[in-house]
């Protein structure tokens, strides 16, 4: 029993939950003895990480993505398309405008398609290149990068920030901290404002803001989204990736030994150790790693890449950048920490050998499915009829006999015009001999509007036996080739 060593000595009166199994297991050697066992809390305190700023190839790539994604995010709502905002999700009117496209709630299948494509792209991308999404394009990384940059400008680099945090409160500290939070708050507020600008026309939103008459929901969402940005990019940072992000947890299912990851070349680096710049490492029996620990200092999730692949690693390549800088300085070859695959490092593959292993069944299957779904979505979007029709039999009248003994059924048709111009639709009906629309059959529907119309359909006396008959409505746009065929039933009373 390993538990008893601790219950009596240092923690009198405190309950101990032994999560160590009994030593007499089949693999008793793996169980810790009382000597090397430690007592830990059930919860872990967050240790603040002070990532050191870094420059290099991968950092430039990351900043490239920061600019690209944020240019799109902050810029898109200001883009105009004809008389309206180019991208606008009008939840109140249930119309979703994406450049030339007007989508109705009935088009939700396209959103599903888009999400399926996004998921498949992520699968494919992860299988080939690991967590490049996490390291370069994920909003969590992008906003953390922006907030870190502000922090760096205001408070200084890693060591200065650590000093400032451990220093007692002073005027300088107060000013720096307030200034940082002010800048963070401005970026966050602008982000929240932009986010709401996708749902309320952003020019109107700006006017409402200046006149102080934003609706309570708009205020709520600006604050909510702004606060989420502020909290996640300013405080939560790597905690989001480690504890909240589901993708970080299930991506191991898409990893294999040919997946691109940030690797440390242990065979070349070990045994690590400090040495004088003039010393010959071979003579000292040392590897290329000079154990400067900079790769740990720059890591935004605070891990040591030299311990191998860890689930916290977001694949940002900061350690690779800093290590290359160090290697240059000490005059060793670059690439001690680099993007590579587990197989490539183990088997010392060349670059072309590594690339050849990109084409493996997993990747090919993901690619095929992704292409198929993308083509299907594009085709269905391109062939989409910008007219939707619902045919509903009248609630009140089953059938009536009108002058001349004709049988009349009444239908209500909902015509939805999914174009941005006024449309005229001709309604015809078929399915029984002599069946015809008896009411006004040319309907006008305003741009992006929908309209219910009552349609009377008549059948000559004795043209069909009593009972229910399948019929079809044909609704044809007069100014475009859009045409819809909808089925319904015609009832002849006994």
């Amino acid at each position, binding site marked *: 029993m390993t538990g008893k060593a601790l219950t009596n000595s240092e923690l009198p009166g405190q309950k101990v*939950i032994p999560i160590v199994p009994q030593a007499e297991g089949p693999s008793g050697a793996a169980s810790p003895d009382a000597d*090397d066992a430690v007592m830990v809390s059930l919860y872990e305190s967050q240790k603040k990480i002070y990532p050191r700023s870094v420059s290099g190839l991968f950092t430039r790539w990351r900043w490239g993505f920061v600019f690209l994604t944020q240019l799109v995010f902050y810029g898109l709502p200001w883009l105009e398309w004809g008389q309206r905002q180019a991208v606008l999700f009008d939840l109140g009117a249930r119309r979703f405008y994406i450049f030339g496209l007007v989508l109705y709630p009935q088009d939700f299948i396209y959103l599903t398609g888009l999400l399926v494509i996004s998921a498949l792209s992520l699968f494919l991308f992860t299988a080939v290149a690991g967590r490049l999404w996490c390291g370069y394009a994920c909003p969590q990384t992008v906003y953390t990068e922006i907030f870190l940059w502000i922090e760096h400008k205001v408070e200084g680099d890693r060591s200065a920030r650590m000093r400032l945090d451990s220093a007692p409160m002073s005027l300088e500290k107060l000013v720096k901290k307030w200034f940082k939070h002010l800048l963070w708050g401005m970026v966050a507020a602008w982000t929240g404002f932009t986010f709401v600008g996708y749902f309320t026309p952003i020019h109107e939103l700006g006017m409402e803001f200046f006149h102080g008459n934003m609706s309570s929901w708009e205020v709520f969402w600006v604050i909510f989204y702004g606060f989420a940005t502020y909290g996640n990019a300013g405080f939560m940072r790597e905690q989001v990736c480690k504890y909240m992000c589901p993708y970080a947890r299930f991506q191991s299912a898409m990893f294999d030994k040919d997946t691109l990851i940030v690797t440390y070349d242990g065979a070349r680096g070990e045994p690590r150790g400090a040495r004088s710049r003039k010393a010959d490492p071979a003579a000292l029996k040392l590897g290329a790693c000079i154990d400067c620990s900079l790769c740990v200092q720059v890591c935004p999730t605070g891990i040591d890449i030299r311990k191998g692949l860890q689930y916290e690693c977001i694949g940002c390549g900061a350690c690779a950048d800093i290590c290359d800088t160090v290697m240059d300085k000490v005059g060793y070859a670059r690439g001690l920490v680099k993007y590579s695959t587990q197989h490539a490092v183990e088997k010392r593959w060349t670059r072309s050998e590594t690339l050849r292993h990109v084409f493996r069944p997993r990747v090919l299957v993901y690619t095929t499915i992704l292409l198929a779904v993308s083509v299907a979505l594009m085709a269905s979007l391109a062939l989409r009829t910008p007219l939707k029709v619902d045919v509903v039999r009248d*609630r009140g009248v089953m059938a009536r006999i009108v002058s001349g003994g004709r049988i009349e059924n009444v239908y209500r048709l909902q015509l939805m015009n999914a174009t941005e111009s006024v449309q005229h639709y001709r309604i015809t009906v078929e399915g029984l001999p002599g069946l015809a629309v008896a009411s006004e059959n040319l309907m006008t529907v305003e741009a992006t509007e929908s309209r219910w119309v009552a349609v009377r359909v008549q059948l000559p006396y004795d043209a069909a036996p009593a009972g229910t008959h399948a019929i079809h409505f044909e609704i044809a746009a007069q100014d475009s080739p859009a045409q819809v065929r909808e089925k319904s039933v015609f009832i002849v009373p006994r």
Partner: protein
Amino acid sequence: MSDFTSNFWSGYVAIITVVSILACLLLLWFSGRAKAMTATDNTTGHVWDGDLREMNNPLPRWWVWLFVITILFAGVYLAMYPGLGNRPGKLGWTSAGQHQAEMEKGSKDVAPLYAKFAAMTPPDMAKDPQAMAIGERLFMNNCAQCHGSDARGSKGFPNLTDGDWLHGGAPEKIEETITQGRIGNMPPMAAAVGTPDDVKNVAHYVLSLSGSPHDSLRASLGKAKFVACAACHGMDGKGNQALGAPNLTDDVWLHGWGENAIVAMISNGKVNQMPAQADKLTKEQIHVLASYVWGLSNGSKPAAQ
């Protein structure tokens, strides 16, 4: 609340709720103080398949605060809103109350609109697309169930578009019909008319009034017997709107056309009812609705066309 005869179950629910929340809090407090033992290499000592070792990956402490926040939220919620048994909560919120408040807000929002319509005459309103759009929606929600969405009715339910009115087609009369409802009563008249053959003759006379196909010999025989009907339908068969007696000469057959239908009507009579809408709709709504219905047979087209 009158769900139960005593307050026992309410107290039972309240106690379970409070005890459960406190138990969660207690659990968090204890787990925050408790310690667990791990090896110095941060493994738990659990080994599977010979070499698969379980690492100790504890939950971050801030996560616990999220639990605490949910507990605080529960406390505030239960204080403000109903949730603890039948305790109504400080805000006194009820779903019925919220519905009431939203309805009141809705009527307040449209009040200026209805005030404008109340000052307008039905012929003016029939030309106003906004009034007709509102009228159409009112009609669809309240009238179309019987009169059909095209307002042309069906057997037993009058057509409102044909200019033929049982109780009068003036806007005020339509408003009166909607507000108070109508009961149309055709008494069984077979005994007053005479033998079944007489009834048949009267039926043919009635058919002849509108020029419908009929047996002219029977019609001429029936003419004398029609006196029994004339009290309500008039000697000329043109009906009487004050009584709701239909015009028999206009070839509009609410309860069916032809000899059999007319014979059945004379023999059995019929009571037909239009329910009163005064409790369902406001005076202003009825004003707009009556204008819409008036417009159907007086040249206005349904709104959005």
